[in-house]
């Protein structure tokens, strides 16, 4: 482990130092996290887990062209790979119970031609306003093992035209299954009466399903946001929506609540799983609190409740900045049943306690 980190450091340091003279900008972080995973079931089991992540961001920007990339190298020990295998590709066993996973989060080129921006490659694209639930967003896959719930990229060709300071129109082509299928979506964004609003349409090539929807975010005593999307094809139609509230208290505490619902028919789950993943049940609730004790100390609490099967996921984390670029993170995760609703494991109950260190560069 130490040898690998040392090698990585010596590989990237020269690039970092030389970037001061060129247009390349490097940044990222190293994060290590260790913890105990308890299965609270009939067969009580404890596992020691360890996850190490090296995130490397690079950016080369000139006037009308930009190259942007970000790669995660995960080194997972013991049981952690079982949590990850379903969501990441390119894993390599490097030692007994030690796996190296790479995840190219983004690598794209952006060209600026007058009011047009063209993005080609793997990009982070997010539609909608939701924090956890986002029915309008067909792109983002959230890393639920990251307390900050960061996202993974998607391969696409995107064109965006600025209509004004805040208004835009964009079209995105998404190749699927090695260019066998091509999805396409368009979105219009604008601001009216201090509300950010967007409308979108989407065509899913493989399933021949179309959808249209909208999102909004603004303030009405409380912060208010929402999304609605309607899918249709021949005799298949269903909708999903999200309603969210946020509020700030004493300039330190932010409360958020989200309610999500969809009404797809269980018979078509194999067709629609891509649209609703990872939330396969009909109704969910999310509560989140971020308590900023000071600039260097924050507490995060997230509770996701599946109203259909009573599954829930609780994440409690404490983040402390101990030096300018160094954070320590204590977290506790409790999982009761399958929050996704995809399986019916009634006995699943897991607690995971962890301690992490994050160094930004």
């Amino acid at each position, binding site marked *: 482990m130490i040898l690998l980190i040392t090698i990585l450091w010596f590989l990237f340091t020269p690039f970092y130092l030389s970037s001061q003279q060129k247009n390349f900008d490097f940044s990222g972080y190293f994060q290590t996290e260790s913890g105990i995973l308890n299965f609270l079931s009939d067969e009580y089991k404890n596992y020691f887990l360890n996850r190490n992540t090296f995130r490397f961001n690079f950016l080369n920007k000139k006037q009308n062209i930009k190259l942007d990339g970000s790669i995660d190298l995960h080194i997972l020990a013991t049981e952690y790979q079982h949590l990850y295998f379903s969501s990441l590709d390119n894993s390599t066993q490097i030692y007994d119970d030690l796996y190296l996973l790479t995840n190219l989060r983004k690598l794209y080129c952006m060209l600026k031609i007058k009011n047009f921006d063209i993005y080609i490659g793997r990009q*982070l694209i997010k539609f909608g306003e939701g924090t956890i639930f986002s029915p309008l967003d067909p792109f983002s896959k959230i890393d639920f093992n990251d307390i900050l719930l960061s996202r993974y990229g998607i391969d696409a060709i995107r064109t965006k035209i600025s209509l004004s300071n805040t208004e*835009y129109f964009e079209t995105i082509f998404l190749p699927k299954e090695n260019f066998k299928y091509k999805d396409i979506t368009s979105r219009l964004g604008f601001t009216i009466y201090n509300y950010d609003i967007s409308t979108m349409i989407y065509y899913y090539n493989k399933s021949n399903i179309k959808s249209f929807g909208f999102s909004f975010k603004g303030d009405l005593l409380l912060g208010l946001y929402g999304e609605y999307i309607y899918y249709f094809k021949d005799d298949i139609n269903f909708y999903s929506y999200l309603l969210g509230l946020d509020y*700030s208290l004493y300039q330190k505490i932010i409360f958020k609540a989200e309610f999500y619902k969809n009404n797809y028919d269980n018979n078509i789950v194999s067709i629609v799983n891509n649209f609703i993943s990872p939330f396969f049940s009909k109704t969910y609730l999310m509560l989140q609190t971020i308590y*900023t004790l000071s600039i260097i100390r924050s507490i995060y609490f997230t509770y996701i409740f599946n109203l259909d099967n009573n599954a829930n996921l609780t994440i409690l984390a404490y983040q402390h900045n101990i030096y300018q*670029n160094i954070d320590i993170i204590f977290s506790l995760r409790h999982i009761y049943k399958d929050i996704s609703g995809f399986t019916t494991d009634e006995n699943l109950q897991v607690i995971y306690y962890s301690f992490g260190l994050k160094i930004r560069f």
Partner: protein
Amino acid sequence: MDFIKFMKKIFFLIFLTSNISIFAITGEEILRKVDNNLNFQSAIITTRLEIHLPNESVRIKKLKSYIQGKNAYTEFINKEDKHIRYLKLNKQMWIYDTEEENIFLISGHLLKQGMMGSDISYEDALEADKIYELYDINLLGEEKLNEKNCYIVELIAKNKNVSYYRRKMWIDKEYFIPLKEERYAISGKLLKTFEYFDIKLYKNRVYPTKTIVSDKLKQNTKTIAIIEEVIFDIDIPQNYFSKRYLQR
């Protein structure tokens, strides 16, 4: 003749006292002079924020702001926060995280949160309207502060849509810039104090380049904002104040 001389003296005294009342400065006039110094059409400002917390080392943030009228674009230039940018258009503010490529609208009550956890709230940063348009102003008197003669001016909000209901300012009589300010809630509770230092002359204006902000709702914390570089009244391309530039 003695009577005529006596009446001339009386008329002279009356004239003198009436002119004193005509030329005495009012609170609003003081604030207008202050606004002439502090408000500007455009500027590019590099600011260093030193955030002081009890029993902790000082946290340093550096940011560069492009400001024109009620619009502003700000990006952090210290290494740890380089991925964060802000766009303010009139009363709205968006945050963009270049690492997650996600844009957030900060609206309403969320504007009361401190920027990056500092004692300076988004509302404080958004404030751009002329003070005398938002407040009723009373001149309370004069006092010496830090060896400087000051006017003491009290401001009471005309309506409740401002960040602070009541403000009390100590204004330097020579340069017409605030040296100290206390900001109060409608309940009368002291919320924040601002202290201004290191006054510098920039062409036709004087400007304090060091501000110490203390949030009275927190204990033993303060944020020091130091202007390292500033250019006033410069043409800034309009494309800086757009979501496209924010997300570039």
